[in-house]
């Protein structure tokens, strides 16, 4: 099998080497996807800022208890799943397949728990507080479109991440995938976590009901 790490072209990265960034094509591909997805989320957060700035009746529907406490728990769960993913990547680099799969399953559990908490929060907002994508009792209907749009796209990323983790965990456990595949999977998962580090303060903490 051709091993990219022993490729002599890498010795002369700036002189037309095959791999000038000293990483495999899968990892480079994932990084380029992450850059493009960052711009998608940036655009959405800018739309949110724009809508918010221009609508004086923007709702502030999140009291510290229970809404902010709940979303803080979600944040910690997602952060914890990032740590387990780091452990999975480190185990994969040591070629410890059993531990890698174990940490990846732990990451999936974190992702599923985050999704379950998020859906609980959504259902509470929709059924009890009557916030929908087209309207709400507290202010501009734009809030629903922006809130459910941004958090929904993020939740979709989490759910896709859980499926992706499942596929790579099974493949790696059976020896079909390499440690690089686990690392690329980790990049995606950390990116999902990174996006939430902007969504949580900007959407939730800027809309606290006092």
């Amino acid at each position, binding site marked *: 099998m051709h091993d*990219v*790490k*022993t*490729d*002599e072209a*890498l*010795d*002369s*990265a*700036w002189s037309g080497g095959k*791999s*000038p*960034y*000293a*990483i495999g094509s899968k990892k*480079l591909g994932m*990084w*380029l996807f*992450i*850059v493009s997805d*960052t*711009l998608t989320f*940036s*655009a959405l957060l*800018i739309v949110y*800022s*724009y809508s918010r*700035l*221009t609508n*004086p009746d923007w709702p502030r529907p999140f009291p*510290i208890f229970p809404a*902010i406490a709940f979303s*803080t728990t979600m*944040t*910690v769960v997602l*952060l*914890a799943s*990032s*740590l387990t*993913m*780091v*452990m999975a990547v*480190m185990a994969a*680099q040591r070629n410890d397949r059993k531990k890698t799969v174990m940490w990846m399953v732990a990451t999936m559990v974190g992702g599923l728990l985050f999704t379950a908490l998020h859906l609980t929060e959504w259902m509470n907002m929709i059924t009890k507080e009557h916030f929908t994508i087209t309207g709400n009792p507290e202010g501009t209907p734009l809030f629903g479109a922006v809130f459910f749009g941004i958090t929904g796209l993020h939740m979709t990323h989490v759910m896709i991440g859980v499926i992706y983790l499942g596929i790579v965990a099974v493949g790696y456990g059976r020896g079909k995938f390499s440690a690089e595949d686990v*690392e690329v999977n*980790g*990049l995606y998962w*950390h*990116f999902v*976590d*990174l996006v939430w*580090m*902007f969504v*949580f*303060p*900007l959407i939730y*903490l*800027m809309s*606290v009901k*006092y």
Partner: protein
Amino acid sequence: MSSEAHAGEVDAGASVGTNLGIWIGLVAITFLEVFLAYEQLQPAVMLTILVVLSLVKAGMIMSYFMHLKYEKLSLVLLLVPAMIFCICMMFIFFFPEAFRLLQMRPH
């Protein structure tokens, strides 16, 4: 790249202890953010602090968890400046329009 790094053999990355330290830092910043929300700061002050803290967290995640600190500089230069430039371009169009509309708000 010299051959001592054996052709693209990148740094193994941070140790478990460093990663754990980064994680504790991320959780601590999250709780600091929540505390600021609890303190009812002025929205403009609050927004500025939150954006700065979020950028710090993003830097920590990208550098350590996403391993960018241990990659070749050429990869960092490929990814980060272009991304920041594009985001700044979006904001260049955002600010004049947003402030014009802000002034048109009914008082």
